[in-house]
């Protein structure tokens, strides 16, 4: 297991190097001049723009800046926001708990819905429960998360007034209000993932339930709970893990829209503003952090895969 973990960690190094390269150079060729924006935008004089370019180090050669950027990654110095002057790491650290809480909430919502739905559908293939699950999950996959978000606000925040329509309360300020502020966004973000996972779990479970060892278990008189919970679930869940890993990337992207709708001060809203402002250091920092989250999620999936399927540990 440790060898598997070490191998996956080593493999992630070139991925992250490529990510730094792509992030840095894509921003270089993107239209727009951050020096002009930093100098005050429309009203800035040519001299002001030149001064801002020098102050931000944007007049240095490209490779020199890339080298500084890589150096900074190792020393934890990702630079400063061009506009707020805030260190990028501090901006990310302030915003990350919001996005990570939201993603974790969405994954929990997804699993709470998907596990029972997928299992019920698989154990009664073709039945009413199966059809209902499939229909709802098709709707869940098809419905964009912003639409779900708006409907949730309409019903649960504006009409029933159970949950807040906007905003985020830090956990340390009030755990109860933190939970409340995350319910609607997590559901909005997690529903599509739930539908996707439920469909995969159903298909995977159907395959497993058709295996000889399951028939043997049934022949031995083991009940449905035992067959599914003890024998089928472990094998059926392995392919679902792959989907789960992919969902982390999708959920991370989804936070951008959900954070706008619910006005959550997370990485998504930070990114949107940074993109419009051409705040390169912030964009670079967020992109690297996002890549890191996805890589870590994939490593965890691989390790879990290895745990569920011992044959993979040696692969």
């Amino acid at each position, binding site marked *: 297991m440790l060898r598997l973990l070490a191998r996956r960690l080593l493999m992630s190094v070139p991925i992250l190097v490529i990510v730094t390269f792509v992030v840095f150079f894509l921003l270089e060729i993107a239209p727009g001049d*951050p020096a002009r924006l930093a100098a005050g935008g429309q009203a800035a004089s040519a001299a002001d723009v030149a001064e801002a370019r020098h102050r931000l180090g944007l007049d240095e050669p490209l490779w020199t800046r890339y080298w500084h950027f890589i150096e900074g990654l190792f020393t934890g110095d990702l630079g400063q*926001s061009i506009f*707020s002057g805030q260190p990028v790491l501090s901006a990310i650290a302030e915003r990350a708990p919001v996005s990570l809480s939201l993603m974790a909430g969405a994954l929990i919502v997804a699993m709470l819905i998907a596990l029972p739905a997928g299992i019920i559908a698989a154990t009664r293939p073709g039945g009413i429960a199966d059809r209902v699950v499939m229909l709802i999950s098709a709707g869940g996959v098809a419905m964009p998360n*912003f639409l779900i978000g708006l409907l949730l606000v309409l019903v649960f925040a504006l009409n029933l007034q159970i949950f807040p329509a906007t905003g985020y309360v830090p956990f340390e300020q009030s755990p109860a209000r933190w939970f409340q502020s995350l319910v609607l966004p997590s559901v909005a973000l997690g529903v599509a993932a739930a539908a996707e996972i439920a469909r995969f779990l159903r298909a995977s479970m159907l395959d497993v339930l058709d295996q000889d060892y399951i028939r043997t278990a049934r022949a031995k008189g083991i009940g449905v709970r035992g067959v599914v919970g003890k024998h089928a679930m472990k094998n059926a869940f392995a392919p679902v893990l792959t989907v789960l890993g992919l969902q982390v990337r999708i959920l991370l992207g989804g936070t951008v829209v959900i954070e706008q709708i619910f*006005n959550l*001060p997370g990485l998504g809203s930070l990114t949107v503003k940074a993109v419009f402002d051409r705040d390169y250091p912030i964009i670079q920092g967020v992109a690297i952090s996002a890549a890191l989250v996805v890589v870590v999620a994939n490593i965890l999936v691989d390790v879990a895969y290895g745990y569920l399927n011992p044959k993979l540990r040696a692969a």
Partner: protein
Amino acid sequence: MSLRERVVAPMAVVVAAASLAACGGGGADPAGEAGPISASAAPGDLDTSATLTFADPFQNDTIDPAKNDSGFPTRQLNLVYDRLIGISPSGELVPQLATKWEFANPTTLRLTLRSGVKFQDGAPFDAAAVVKNLDRSREMPDAGPAVSAPAASIKDMKASGTDVVEITLKKPRYSILYDLAQNLGMMISPGSLSGSLDRAAVGAGMYKLVEFKPGVSATYKRWDGYWDAGAVKLAGFVVKSIPDAQTRINALQSGQVTMSLIDESQVDDAKGAGVRVSEKATVSAWTMFLNMTRGGLKNEQVRQALSYAIDRKSLVETLGHGHGEPTVQMFPSTYEAYSKDWPATKYPFDAAKAKELLAGAGYGNGAKFSALILNRPLDKQLGQALQRMVKPAGITLELKVVEPARYSMFTDGEVDMFLGRWGGRADPADTLNSNAGKGGFINPGSGTTPEFQTLMDKIETTPTGDARTKLVQEASALFAQQQLDIPVFARRSIFADNGCVVGFTPYMVGADEYRGVGVRKNCG
């Protein structure tokens, strides 16, 4: 058009209508019953322990007055920083930290300061503090242009005793008074001048900054040592940055904010649901900004033809949802700089007249112009509407949609015109000069006309007062006659609140103040 614009915007409208209708009987008072937002209340009717939470579409990165100079976000700086000179809701200069100002000669401004004022850290506000503040603005390498440019016009400052400051200018420039009424005049405690003011603020304003989170929120609490204690009616003030218009309305309806800026498109729904709406004309206007150094736009008749070719009334109805005023000047008709000689009716929507003018200018076969638009929903709507409108007059607009950061394509002279929104300036002469004067920042190639430039030069050396206002009106009339840019319609700032806010008057020049703003007891 992006997926979000195609799908989210219509959806937001549907949901807004449904949600507002559903919440009609909610906590807010029905429109009108609560009285106007600008009404005052008896001291006993105010909740002095209340915190007003304001939803602002703008996301401030820094709270440093020298850096944060994009106009609208200064609204929240006014909470913590008092300025040397104030501005009234209708745009006139009024005393604030300086009680009197006079020009000893065209280059020497003498300010008499309010005595007995203290900064929030207890330091005295005096002439020495003013000199230190102005010195910082002059020396600061990363000051924004709204501060660095006027600061650069100052040759020297001198404290004369504790209550008088003399500012010597490099050349006569009476618009310095308007600069001192904006970010340049925001007074920072001398003890804080050497440190970073991106996230900290110590001024002499009504509220003390408790916490500033860039792009997220700012929290203020009442400062009991304020020199005009009667103006402070709240225990605290919170500004939440909420860029999405629908989210702002949702926050207002669910009671998470007390007051919000809203979009024109939301007014009717908001009123229908009982959310109180207040609006006021502003010096901001949708405009066709011209590069008068390019092709046909050098010709006055061509510019006038463009003006005749657009249907301003219909644009107010569609783009402004009925909230706005057709204008051929850069100002609304209620502003002091507006010239009554040039109402919008001087350029009625008349494609035949436009064609005639074009033919007279040698463009009988039509004229073609490249027009830059920023990739934002309303900007694109304006561009597409104008493109269709001018077509029957034989004018072709080739639209180039770019991200906001590429706006410089216009100022760099790569296109004929830029279709967008003018944010307004406190000094009306600044508005005219920026758009059509020599060196105007939104006037590529400094395209102007000799007679307009002569007027602008005269205004620059005329003291503020009736004579200057008259000259500005003349310049505005000339601007309209020659259509140096083509204003389309003047915008309004629109506020919605839960029916509990009193004493608030939206400002015509954008930088609203919250003097005397309070919240009624047992409301909301």
